[in-house]
């Protein structure tokens, strides 16, 4: 009687399927591993190359309102900070130094207080020293932060004299980076985006 191998055939199909599952799992592991490090917070801002968001904010220091478009014709540096942000303390001196150094050189600095109380932001500036050449603004309802696509602070955006967003720094910046980015924009280059360190999303963010 010829042997009937139906049962063995079933195991062979099962083996094939099992190898398929193993191969599939391996490929999926590679795919998902490749996504590590591509945090959406680090993905290139869709704002780069686009016009500066049309937002108007009230002043934190002084009276009145200021629109981003008011700075057209100058290079604009927009820095988002808050009193609860440790990294913002680390970069504060660099921002004050850069703002003061570029005074009268066609470069304007704006500090936007993000997710903060006015009183706390003012205390922060009192403690660390404010730049006379910087416009400090208050972001009521996170309008500016959402319009700029802020994930966490500090974040700093660079806008060219034509009003196009040309640079973004995620994390605490330093004077050389600020200055060389402005120098690059003056040469007509597009600095793009870079990450320099940690950011914080909210006061409780460790």
């Amino acid at each position: 009687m010829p042997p009937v191998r139906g049962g063995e055939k079933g195991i062979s199909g099962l083996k094939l399927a099992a190898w398929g599952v193993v191969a599939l799992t391996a490929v999926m592991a590679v795919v998902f591993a490749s996504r590590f490090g591509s945090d959406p917070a680090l993905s290139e801002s869709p704002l780069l190359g686009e016009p500066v968001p049309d937002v108007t904010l009230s002043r934190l220091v002084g009276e009145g309102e200021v629109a981003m478009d008011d700075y057209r014709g100058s290079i604009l540096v927009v820095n988002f900070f808050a009193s609860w942000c440790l990294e913002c303390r680390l970069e504060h001196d660099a921002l004050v130094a850069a703002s003061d150094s570029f005074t009268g050189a066609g470069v304007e600095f704006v500090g936007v207080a993000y997710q903060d109380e006015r009183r706390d932001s003012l205390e922060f500036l009192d403690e660390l020293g404010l730049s006379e050449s910087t416009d400090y603004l208050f972001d009521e309802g996170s309008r500016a932060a959402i319009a700029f696509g802020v994930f966490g602070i500090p974040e700093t955006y660079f806008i060219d004299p034509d009003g196009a967003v040309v640079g973004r720094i995620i994390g605490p910046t330093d004077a050389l980076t600020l200055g060389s980015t402005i120098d690059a924009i003056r040469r007509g280059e597009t600095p793009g985006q870079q990450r320099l360190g940690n950011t914080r999303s909210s006061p409780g963010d460790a």
Partner: protein
Amino acid sequence: MAEGTIVERLPASIRAVPWSVLSIVAMAIALVALVSTYDPPADAAEEIGSLIRCPVCQGVPIADSPSPMARDMMAILRQSLDEGATRQEAIEAVLGAYPGSLLLEPEVNASTLALWLIPVVALVGGGGLVLTLRRGRRASDVVPERREIEDRLAAVRADLDELALQEAAGDIDQEAAHHLRAAYQTEFTEAQTALAELQPVAEPLARSPRRVAIGAAVIVVALAAIVVAAGAFLVDRPDTTSGVAGALEGDPSDYSNETLAAVIAANQDHPQIDGMRLALAERHFAEGDYQSAFPYSLDVASSDLAARPQVATALTRLGWMADDGNGEVDTALDLLAQARTVAPEDPFPLYLEGIVTWCGNDDAAAAAAAFREVLASGVEDAEVRRQVEGDLAATEAGEACPR
């Protein structure tokens, strides 16, 4: 450990229930639980907000997040919808400046292709697996049935043989033998037919390269689809180090005076900051901008961290600026003397001292003495040496300062 102990302890009535039925019941319970706990969105804003991932939270939609940022995003969403924005415009108002990955229901594009393909591949693959297993099981079910028929055939064949023997021995009458033979033969024919019917099912169960090839092809195609999607993921990864970082690697001479000033102002206590101060002072000095050069030179001259030659250079520049810029001859000579004290090996302060004495104090003889000392100290640069020699000749001849 005894095999299947837990299952064996179950009552026979439960053990008899097929796994497929249990699976369906479990899925039904899950479905009922999902439906009963489903909280429909209160309005359009809630519905859209449930599709937008809060950028400052971990995988929570803005409609459900207590964070102030999510609350502010919901406010903008509501306002946009109240102002008559379409669904897409409202999403754009909130996510316009954020990368598309914040949508919890991602669009179909190159980078999300794998996300959409995986469930389809899993469904097709899972279905294929179930079918393979079922076929395998059916094939193994056939084996006992076939054996049973073959046993029957063998038994009938034995009965026919025995009948022939009985007939030959005259142990059975003709009529009875005829009836029995007819009955055995009918049974034999039936069993043969049954065996023949089994054959087409049993046949493909033997080794089939075709099936293996089809299975392999399905897996290869699925893998290829996933690899292509993975490629899209990799290509889509943003280059986060380009741009600004490139500027930092450039030639330091690319940095503007303002950038150097900012770096100096922000790093007053840095051990190497005096080199940068001196470099910026030199730039301003070369441009004839003494007013800008002065504070940096002064900082270096009075710095505890500056190297000796740096202090001497700063004092020399300050001395020259005091004379050339302000006409303060005594201050200039004092500063140049300090420079000589700090760096006695540097002949440059002495040369400038000669110039200031000659031009500021009209003392050609004292200047000539200074120039002689400079030449005696050994000036290596031929051009500088020629200049000092020229000045020495002029002072020795009693000429007035040419400035």
